[in-house]
């Protein structure tokens, strides 16, 4: 079972969705959660803090989730950070692009709390977290 104290960054430009994801994480026992409102904000927070996990939207102003993911994978200190995409983008090209860029999971909105839990656990298992 994953360490419930792990610190998670939730990235989404819609405050409602950030609150929903945060509450779902809390429900699963993860209370160490911070929020960022776009990819750029997330990168700033990631570089100045120590995070164990990122849950990110795709379509955001300034820096979108895919660009952010690419920059995380290109950064020597962040490259191994697990990133779960939670997005409304539902085209096959999107899913393929996210996987190729190194996303650890892909949840399409609207999603259920069971789906989020399942995908999180899958990543934890795979990475031995």
């Amino acid at each position, binding site marked *: 079972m994953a360490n419930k104290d792990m610190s998670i960054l939730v990235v*989404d430009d*819609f405050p*409602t*969705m950030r*609150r*929903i994801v945060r*509450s*779902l994480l809390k*429900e699963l026992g993860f209370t160490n959660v911070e929020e960022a409102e776009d990819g750029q904000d997330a990168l700033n927070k990631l570089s100045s803090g120590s995070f164990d996990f990122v849950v990110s939207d*795709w*379509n955001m102003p300034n820096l*979108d989730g*895919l660009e952010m993911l690419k920059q995380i994978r290109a950064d020597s200190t962040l490259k191994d950070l697990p990133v779960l995409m939670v997005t*409304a*983008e*539902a*085209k*096959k*090209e*999107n*899913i*393929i*692009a996210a*996987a190729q860029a190194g996303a650890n999971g*892909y*949840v*399409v*909105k*609207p*999603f*259920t*709390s069971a*789906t989020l839990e399942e995908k999180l656990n899958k990543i934890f298992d795979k990475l031995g977290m």
Partner: protein
Amino acid sequence: MSNETPSQDLPQESSDELVQRIGQLTRMLRESMRELGLDKEIEKAAEAIPDARDRLNYVATMTEQAAERSLNAIDRAQPLQDDLSTRAEALDKRWAEWFAEPQELDEARDLVQDTRGYLADVPKRTQATNQELLEIMMAQDFQDLTGQVIKKMMDVIREIEYQLVQVLIDAVPQGKAREDLQKRATNQWQTDERRREEGLLNGPQIKPEGENIVTGQDQVDDLLDELGF
């Protein structure tokens, strides 16, 4: 008929002439619009309208579903809460009676057992209520989805605006004023276009039957499996 109010009726000949004149004007207008390319502009603007209608429809459906989902959850949670409070009140009343006039041990044992039974039941009930609260929270995800669709719709409206502005500009006599207007409209359009030309950013699918679109998490998982991720 014609002999009743002859003064108000146009003579047959003159009415024919009028119809013909209107016909000619219409044809002239249509031809000059085509020459100026205005018919295409208007056509483009008109084509954007069904898309806007689809998007509005999506927003209406999503908000309705969210409201229904929340209200249903509330309908399920309220009886749970009512039951908890009714039973607590009944037990409290029995305890008050017992304290006022202590009874035989047997009767007291019943009361203690009922109270313990109730206490054991409370967490189950509150958990069920919590599930409903979670359901209400999840229903709020419509705000993100409709928000994205509304943003897309604003692009559509901008497109219509641009096409209509073009029509207006083309009606301004040639000269510096017209060139300035054209330049401003083009600049604005290019800024907007840059923002729009992002092939992977489409937001929620308003018509899931489209090509290359996954319709749910299962299909996402299948695709990723297929790709070996």
